[in-house]
């Protein structure tokens, strides 16, 4: 049995490979990005979708076709994919479908710390939660088996610490290959018109009760007998903190976090004098267990924020009321000194623009010296927010409003905002700047439809940002290199702001970190093309 030191992300990729996953798809997002990249490196078929909704839909289609499909995203990505997510619980699946939700408690690299365990209950989908890389591997495989057995998508919920921590993983050899994809027509199960959806909802609730009973005796949940004085119910990486903080305690480590094995929880709570639920994030387990009439103790409100740790678990268990020490403040990230976006922020700053911003490296333009962003909420939101400001502000202020969005984010969900812009133009017009550095820089240089290369950096059809803008009816479209002539960029921006028209400015210059790699991919593609010409198969 091969043992290796793997991150949780790499472990999920290894499980996908060993479990014969036919298709992996997703959208890059810290801390989930490395799953698909590693799956591709291991020889799996992995691809980036323009956004998480499309990724889930592609994976769902694959699973309707009987394939094993994996779809990965960060926690906020599941919001984008929530529409198909909820109804996929009604349709169910033919092949195994596993959805990885990588949550970010403490917000190491995110705009919020939402707890996606809520989605399992809200949508009615089984959820498994690993505590380290070995469990990430084992539970990813278990999730596919569970998905096929119950014909439901299964959510594998990970967190930053599980995704990015490395620990030893033993991979399994000789796993049976999954069934070959084949279409099975089942109109009533797959077409959610109200007449078919009503019985589908009832069927889902029945499945979930069946799953609850199944989870009661699931070997995945670990009950560690310890002291009768203290019992702890926990899940995820927190289980490891608890074992270190209170090695003497009895422990129920939940891996099947939805549906909960309530009878087992009742038996565990009844077996100890004091039963504490220690969970990172929202009090989800605590509320569900209390709602079932089981007396347990939760954590104080202060521990809802941020990650838990051995130290914080000690405090919870000791009911330590003292305020927690401030963690040491390190150096904050900043725009790279040679980032091509500096001249853009300099111009926005100089022209005193009101800036609706978006998600990516360029969000760092909010920090001094530019303080160049006035709002940043969600992927693609810059366009709509900018339009809303333009619609209501007095004319003099409205004229200063600009939306800025990165290339990958634009393709992800800025596109619908662009359509809104031409459909409902503000009286003062609007200026949308697409910061095109030729890569998804923040998450570590992933490809996207606008780069013209696939996840594995192979050439494919390139989506043209300026072409899209013109196609939807924007008449003023400029493509400029902001670094080549910063003064010209500033002049152009001032002109576009002064005119009551809709304007898209594509500020194009490769990310300085990505540029050498981009050149390498382009040269490889060129060499391949030349070889193809020589062989006569153009």
């Amino acid at each position, binding site marked *: 049995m091969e043992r290796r*030191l793997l991150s949780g992300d790499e472990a999920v990729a290894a499980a996908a490979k060993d479990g014969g996953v036919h298709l992996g798809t997703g959208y890059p997002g810290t801390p989930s990005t490395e799953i698909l990249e590693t799956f591709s490196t291991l020889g799996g078929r992995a691809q980036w979708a323009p956004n998480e909704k499309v990724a889930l839909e592609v994976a769902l289609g694959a699973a309707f076709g009987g394939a094993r499909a994996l779809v990965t995203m960060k926690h906020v990505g599941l919001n984008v994919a929530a529409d198909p997510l909820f109804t996929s619980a009604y349709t169910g699946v033919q092949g195994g479908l596993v959805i990885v939700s990588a949550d970010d408690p403490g917000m190491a690299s995110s705009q919020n710390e939402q707890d996606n365990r809520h989605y399992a209950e809200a949508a009615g989908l089984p959820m498994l939660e690993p505590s380290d890389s070995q469990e990430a591997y084992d539970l990813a495989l278990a999730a596919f088996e569970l998905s096929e057995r119950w014909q439901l998508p299964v959510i594998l919920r990970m967190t930053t610490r599980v995704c990015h921590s*490395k620990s*030893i993983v033993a991979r399994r050899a000789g796993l049976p290959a999954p069934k070959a994809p084949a279409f099975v027509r089942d109109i009533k199960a797959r077409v959610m018109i109200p007449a078919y959806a009503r019985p589908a909802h009832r069927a889902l609730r029945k499945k979930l009760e069946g799953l609850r009973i199944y989870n009661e005796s699931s070997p995945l949940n670990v009950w560690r007998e310890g002291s009768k004085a203290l019992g702890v119910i926990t899940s995820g*990486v927190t289980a490891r903190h608890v074992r270190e903080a209170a090695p003497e305690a009895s422990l129920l480590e939940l891996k099947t976090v939805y549906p909960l094995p309530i009878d087992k929880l009742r038996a565990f709570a009844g077996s100890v004098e004091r039963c504490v639920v220690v969970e990172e994030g929202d009090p989800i387990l605590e509320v569900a267990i209390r709602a079932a009439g089981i007396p347990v103790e939760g954590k104080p409100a202060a521990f809802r924020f941020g990650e838990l*740790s051995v*130290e914080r678990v000690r405090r919870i268990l000791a009911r330590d009321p003292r305020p927690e020490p401030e963690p*040491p403040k*390190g*150096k904050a*990230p900043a725009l790279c000194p040679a980032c091509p976006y500096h001249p853009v922020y300099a111009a926005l700053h100089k022209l005193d623009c009101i800036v609706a911003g978006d998600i990516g490296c360029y969000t760092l333009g909010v920090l001094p010296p530019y303080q160049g962003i006035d709002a940043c909420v969600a992927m693609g939101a810059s366009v709509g927010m900018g339009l809303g400001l333009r619609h209501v502000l007095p004319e003099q202020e409205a004229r200063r409003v600009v939306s800025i969005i990165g290339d990958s984010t634009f393709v992800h969900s800025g596109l619908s905002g662009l359509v809104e812009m031409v459909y409902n133009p503000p009286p003062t017009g609007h200026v949308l700047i697409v910061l095109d550095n030729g890569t998804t820089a923040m998450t570590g240089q992933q490809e996207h439809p606008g780069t013209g290369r696939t996840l594995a950096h192979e050439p494919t059809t390139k989506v043209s940002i300026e072409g899209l803008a013109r196609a939807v009816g924007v008449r003023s479209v400029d493509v400029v290199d902001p670094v080549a002539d910063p003064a010209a960029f500033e002049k152009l921006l001032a002109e576009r702001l002064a005119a009551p028209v809709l304007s898209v400015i594509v500020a194009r210059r490769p990310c300085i970190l990505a540029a050498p790699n981009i050149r390498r991919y382009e040269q490889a593609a060129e060499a391949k093309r030349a070889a193809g010409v020589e062989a006569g198969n153009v």
Partner: protein
Amino acid sequence: MSSRIVNVVLAGVGGQGVIKASDILADAAFRAGRDVKKAEIHGMSQRGGSVTTDVRFGDEVLSPMITPGEADFLVVLDPSEIAVTRSLLRAGGLLVPPDAIEEARLPNKKSLNVALLGILARALDLPEEAWRAAIHAALPERLHALNEAAFRLGRETALPRPNP
């Protein structure tokens, strides 16, 4: 139990090779047959921010994170990070600061991470072969000789004095 776990924090800023160094250390401990966990936060840190990684090894490692004030070793690659990370070290723990090695003696400025691991190696009970294999596994072949030289330089450098 925790007395048998070795806790090493590596700190620096994005681009210095902190994560690479922690990968080498974790891999060396793994190759030496220890249970290992390594925790890091990356993402925003790519943009020049602080990077801290925790490497823990021993018989059985539970939490991947080192509790502040319980690190046995603190290896710091950037002088600006010493003040903010010093409190992570336990009393009697060992700080390996960036100036523990004379910059002029490094085979290459970028090899400071591996040179500081060389100093750390003097205090850790891990076989030389495990270190060598870990350095080879983590870096492309053209950088092997240079980094082995940096590691040796660290190995031959005296250990700093422990934290009072």
